[in-house]
């Protein structure tokens, strides 16, 4: 580690390992963090799962239990937040071991990465990183069951094979169920990886089929599913906290007498002094603990708190936007360059420039942050809807001053995650409150106001683009400046440039065939907690680039689809290093090059399926956008209808998606359907603004998210099919989001001639008279 990284570690009080983990949690910012090479040059680079803290585990004794009763229990060690990982991952194990899915139970692992391998559920990585280890796990379990049967019958193992929860001896027709083999199999040696026989693709029963129901479906629809907000004990207390409205603020003094006297209130207390760096630490605040959450919420209104706002008390998002715009029009740190942009712009027959703005966006998970904790005999148990189990365990231990061994983190279902629940400040709060109550169980619940006021928000960004074209409208020069506070500021408040990972999200790794280009990243500072929101910096980068390409096409008077394909250029596999992207989503540049053929493929597919080029009456139109992120390729066509009052409706969205082979296509479709809705939602309504350092939106009446009457009734997902399971998998949870907002704005332009460069759209589609 170099000196700067060391300084961050020292100032943060983190071990080197913790520092690496937190950077990784941002989506695998592995090698380059804010330009800091935190892995020594001598260290061989590790990619994919092996580059993640604690890597992968493929031991069947860790992940599979076969009961005498024949029930197979498979451990899910990644967090379920709607992406379907509790179904999709065990399904891989079950298939390889020839288990019958109807006799499979899934059990959630507690936080323990040494035992289970990496558990950070973000970066669209779970299936991509654990498909192979889970296959090996299942295959090993199958072979142990087969061997147990062979021993029982005293026949060579080669003569038996497992089929659908039984092992058969072909010669004699004898069968033994998995249950009756369980005890014997468990005593056998786990086969070496080199000895494993994996299934052939045509033997898959569940993988690639999309034929199994959600493992938690029944519990969810009957109200039995356990989220982080649901653990309940008879002697439990319920807390809400009034937190500093400004990042870095502290409690000067407070009067809690009226709150303490309110019905049901047990205790009013100041939270422990906050840690200077935001990281995943709780904010300063005053807690009200009562015999119900409702009582605590009512009493909190009676608190009188005198806050010291600190340095961020003047943060004003309008003023900040103006300052970012100013930066965007001046040269900044060059982060990628090829050819000679200045000469090319001078020589261009025509130039075009545009500036785009994307505001802070809140995650607004339907289950707000919440957690339960209790401490018995010095051992703390936490129940939390966390995307980052291990970081939760480490943080709780550190804040309580106990060892990690004395902290158990039970990972519940997450009522939405989207990156918010990668930051377990809420779990630490519950543990601190339990500690203050001598270990009694406490549930802390964030109200919706708390959630919107104190989120780890999506960054705010100004993107400036300028292009030069030749006489035929072909792009010869491309200048892009991206100005946005970095999420690295959570750990190093002085960071003032986008990190390698943020730059590599659709900015510097833009793969278009343009001879002269320069990407610049001017400085920007953070004044609220900046976090990662589903697809992260791809949102502003894709919005700007995909809007700008449509503007260029219109300016050249060419069809947008044809123009985009020409810009992408011929099919080729690009080494991300040649794009000056050292990050590449943490994946090997050889195994995961940027494949413009696949990018072309999704553009061609989605335009074909959506009937691109259809003629519409004025007021209705189609918009296109394509984007590569999380090593997957997505393209969308949005059909928008704008009425006389400028109100937008979206009758139909097509999205084509190429993530390589698809383990559970049913959940991939649902993820993309959801990404379409979330993308439209942020494009039309999503914005958190600040005045005097305080977020201005309180609840869903001010922070609007898409509702059923506004949602497209027709979403068509087109998956690019593959049968080669040796091909590396792409991410799924996030890459559907980035193309949606620009596709919508391009549709609004097609329908009305109105170009929207500032999100959210709100009433900007209103036609001028």
């Amino acid at each position, binding site marked *: 580690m170099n000196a700067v990284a060391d300084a961050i570690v020292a100032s943060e009080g983190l071990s080197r390992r913790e520092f690496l983990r937190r950077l990784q949690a941002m989506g695998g910012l592995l090698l380059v963090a804010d330009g800091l090479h935190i892995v020594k040059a001598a260290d061989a680079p590790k990619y994919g799962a092996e580059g993640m803290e604690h890597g992968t585990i493929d031991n069947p004794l860790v992940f599979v239990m076969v009961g005498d009763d024949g029930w197979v229990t498979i451990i899910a060690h990644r967090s*379920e*937040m*709607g*992406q*379907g990982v509790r179904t999709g991952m065990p399904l891989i194990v079950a298939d390889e071991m020839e288990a019958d899915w109807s006799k499979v139970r899934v059990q959630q692992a507690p936080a323990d990465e040494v035992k289970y391998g990496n558990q950070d559920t973000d970066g669209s990585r779970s299936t991509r990183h654990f498909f192979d280890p889970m296959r090996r796990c299942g295959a090993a379990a199958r072979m142990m069951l087969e061997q147990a049967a062979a021993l029982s019958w005293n026949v060579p193992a080669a003569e038996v094979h497992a089929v659908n929860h039984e092992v058969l001896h072909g010669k004699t027709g004898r069968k033994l169920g998995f249950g009756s083999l369980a005890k014997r199999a468990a005593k056998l040696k786990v086969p070496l990886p080199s000895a494993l026989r994996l299934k052939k693709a045509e033997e898959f029963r569940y993988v690639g089929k999309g034929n199994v*129901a*959600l493992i938690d*479906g*029944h519990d*969810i*629809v*009957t*109200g*039995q*599913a*356990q989220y982080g*907000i*649901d653990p*309940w004990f*008879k002697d439990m207390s*319920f807390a809400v906290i009034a937190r500093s409205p400004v990042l870095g603020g502290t409690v000067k003094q407070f009067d809690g007498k009226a709150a303490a006297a309110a*019905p*049901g209130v047990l205790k009013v207390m100041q939270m422990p002094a906050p840690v200077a760096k935001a990281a995943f630490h709780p904010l300063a605040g005053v807690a009200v603990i009562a*015999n*119900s*959450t*409702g*009582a605590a*919420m*009512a009493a909190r209104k009676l608190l009188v708190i005198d806050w010291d706002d600190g340095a961020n008390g003047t943060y004003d998002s309008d003023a900040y936007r103006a300052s970012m715009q100013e930066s965007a029009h001046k040269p900044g740190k060059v982060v990628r360059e090829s050819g000679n942009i200045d000469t090319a712009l001078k020589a261009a027959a025509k130039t075009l420039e545009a500036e785009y703005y994307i505001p802070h966006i809140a995650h*607004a*998970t*339907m*289950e*707000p942050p919440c957690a339960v904790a209790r401490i018995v005999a010095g051992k703390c148990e936490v129940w939390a809807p966390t995307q980052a189990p291990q970081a939760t365990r480490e943080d709780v231990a550190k804040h309580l001053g106990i060892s990690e061994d004395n902290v158990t983190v039970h990972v519940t*279902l*997450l*009522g*939405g995650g989207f990156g918010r629940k990668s930051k377990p400040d809420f779990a630490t709060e519950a543990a601190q409150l339990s500690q203050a109550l001598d270990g009694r169980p406490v549930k802390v619940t964030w*109200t*919706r106001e708390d959630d919107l006021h104190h989120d780890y928000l999506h960054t705010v960004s100004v993107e400036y683009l300028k292009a030069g074209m030749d006489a035929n409208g072909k792009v010869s020069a491309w200048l892009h400046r991206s100005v946005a506070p970095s999420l690295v500021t959570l750990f190093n408040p002085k960071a003032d440039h986008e990190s390698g990972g943020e730059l590599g999200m659709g900015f510097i790794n833009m793969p278009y065939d343009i001879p002269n280009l320069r990407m610049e990243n001017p400085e920007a500072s953070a004044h609220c907690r900046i976090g990662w929101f589903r697809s992260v910096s791809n949102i502003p980068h894709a919005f700007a680039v995909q809007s700008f390409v449509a503007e260029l096409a219109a300016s050249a008077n060419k069809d947008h689809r044809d123009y985009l394909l020409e810009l992408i250029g011929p099919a080729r596999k690009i080494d991300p290093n040649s794009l000056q992207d050292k990050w590449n989503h943490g994946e090997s540049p050889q195994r995961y090059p940027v494949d413009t053929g696949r990018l072309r493929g999704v553009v061609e597919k989605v335009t074909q399926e959506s009937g691109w080029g259809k003629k519409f009456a004025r007021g209705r139109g189609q918009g296109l956008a394509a984007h590569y992120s999380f090593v997957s390729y997505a393209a969308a066509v949005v059909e928008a209808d704008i009425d006389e009052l400028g109100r937008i409706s979206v009758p139909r969205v097509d999205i084509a998606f190429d993530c390589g082979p698809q383990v559970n296509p049913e*959940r991939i479709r*649902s*993820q993309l*359907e*959801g990404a379409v*809705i*979330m993308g439209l939602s942020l494009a039309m309504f999503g914005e958190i603004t600040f005045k005097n350092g305080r977020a201005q939106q309180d*609840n*869903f*009446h001010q922070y609007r*998210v*898409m*509702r*059923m*009457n506004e*949602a*497209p*009734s027709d*979403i068509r997902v087109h998956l690019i099919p593959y049968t080669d399971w040796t091909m590396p998998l792409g991410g799924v949870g996030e890459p559907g989001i980035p193309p949606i907002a620009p596709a919508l704005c391009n549709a609004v332009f097609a329908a009305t001639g109105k170009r929207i460069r500032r999100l959210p759209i709100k009433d900007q589609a209103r036609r001028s008279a």
Partner: protein
Amino acid sequence: MDLKINDHTVTVAADPDLPLLWVLRDLLGMTGTKFGCGMALCGACTVLIDGQALRSCVLAVSEAVGKNITTIEGIGASAVGAALQGAWQEINVPQCGYCQAGQIMSAAALLQAKPQPSDADIDAAMSGNICRCGTYTRIRSAIKQAANHGAVTK
């Protein structure tokens, strides 16, 4: 006070102004009904009061005394509720699933009132229930499937 919840009478000591949501969740441990906004904006806390879909986060518990309270834990006892729960699973509606209890309760009230709802009816009944994961198209399909199923069994 006595509350009639899912056809059982329970006695609970609660501040009469406390929202029903917290009586269910915190005092009785019936956690199927969810908290989402506290202002009747998102529908996660929807329950049926005498068959009508209401937001329990803004309903004082005293208002529910003497009425039939139905929650997600009890809705499966009705034909409509069971049909909805079945359709929800067949179509794999949920993503995270957190809002789905409220969605099903709103859908149940809709189908009780209108066994064959139009798209406009579905929009009107369901637009008070937010799903941040974006399962709306599947919710719509599941309501229609349950409605068709209901028509067959009646």
